[in-house]
């Protein structure tokens, strides 16, 4: 081995030693950072602060339920109505399909469908409706006041819109909220979110 090649080899060794040290330091930082910060989960976006709060409603089995009954579970909450042919089935199907893709993590999540149309959506109507999505989505109704109060907690705007033939639709905010086990909104999704993407985001949040 010539002197030149020995020098080259030494440089190579130095290069790898420095690289290795840097790499190890980086790795240590990556591992340590979440521990130092205290959590590996992203904080909910500021826009969600103050969203999510107490509610008292009637479930599809006729039982009175409150937010406290679900404490310790993550919730997926969607407000809609059963006469809504487009946006609501889209959202509920996305929820059902996303939960199917989640595996064991789905046990941590209770999906809720809160009607904005209590006049037509009785507990029995809701029970038949949610069953069609072949998931454990729980339908919630209540008095007009109870529903308005729950909607307010989630900043859901809604308004009856007569369709001319004595019938009506309901204009409403169409968002799926993910609520943490303490009852605060953690994320929200459009009703058009693809089930794969929703499942991935849910897995990251609750996993």
């Amino acid at each position: 081995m010539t002197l030149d090649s020995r020098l080259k080899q030494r440089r190579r060794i130095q290069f790898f030693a420095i690289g290795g040290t840097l790499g190890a330091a980086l790795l240590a930082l990556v591992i340590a950072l979440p521990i130092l910060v205290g959590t590996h989960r992203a904080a909910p976006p500021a826009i969600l602060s103050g969203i999510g709060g107490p509610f008292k409603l009637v479930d599809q089995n006729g039982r009175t339920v409150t937010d406290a009954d679900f404490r310790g579970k993550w919730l997926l909450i969607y407000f809609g109505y059963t006469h809504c042919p487009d946006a609501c089935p889209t959202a509920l199907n996305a929820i059902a399909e996303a939960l199917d893709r989640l595996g064991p993590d789905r046990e941590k999540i209770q999906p809720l469908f809160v009607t904005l149309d209590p006049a037509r959506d009785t507990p029995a109507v809701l029970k038949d409706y949610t069953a069609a999505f072949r998931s454990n989505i729980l339908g919630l109704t209540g008095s007009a006041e109870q529903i308005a109060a729950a909607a307010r907690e989630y900043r859901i705007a809604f308004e009856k819109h007569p369709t001319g033939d004595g019938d009506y639709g309901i204009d409403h905010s169409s968002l799926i909220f993910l609520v943490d086990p303490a009852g605060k909104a953690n994320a929200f999704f459009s009703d058009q979110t693809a089930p794969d993407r929703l499942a991935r985001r849910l897995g990251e949040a609750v996993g």
Partner: protein
Amino acid sequence: MIKVMALAFVLAIGACASMALAQQATGNGIEVVHAWARATPGRTQTGAAYASIVNHGGAPDRLIAVSSPVAEKADLHEDKLDNGIMKMRPLDALTIAPGHSTELKPGGDHIMLMGLKQPLRQGESFPMVLTFEKAGAVKVMVNVEKPGAMGAPSMDHMHSSAPAK
């Protein structure tokens, strides 16, 4: 050999004739493909149907009415996201430019079926008539997919249209 060629020739002519017939059958250049609806969950009597409409003609045409024997009324609706609020509003008509197609789909323009006489069940199909200003009535068979489905299986192109008799 000549016989075989003659037969092939006859078959080819036949194929051309039926293709010409099929194109004619789409009604003055309008073709409706891939008509599908969502199964209705529970007792709900309101459903939604979707389709792709292709204008092969040289002039714009307008979809002006929809009807189906399964519903008391069928309306064309659009979804509008207005300040975060989903609003569904009737559309008077839907214009399809020549050489273009438009897709009725969830979250966009759709056909709302009101006063359903029976629930729409996954796997079933039902007739629906789309009436165009120029092309006239085009009858399609609508396949029922699951509740909340976002589309029909893509290989299913065979339910193209034929004019209403």
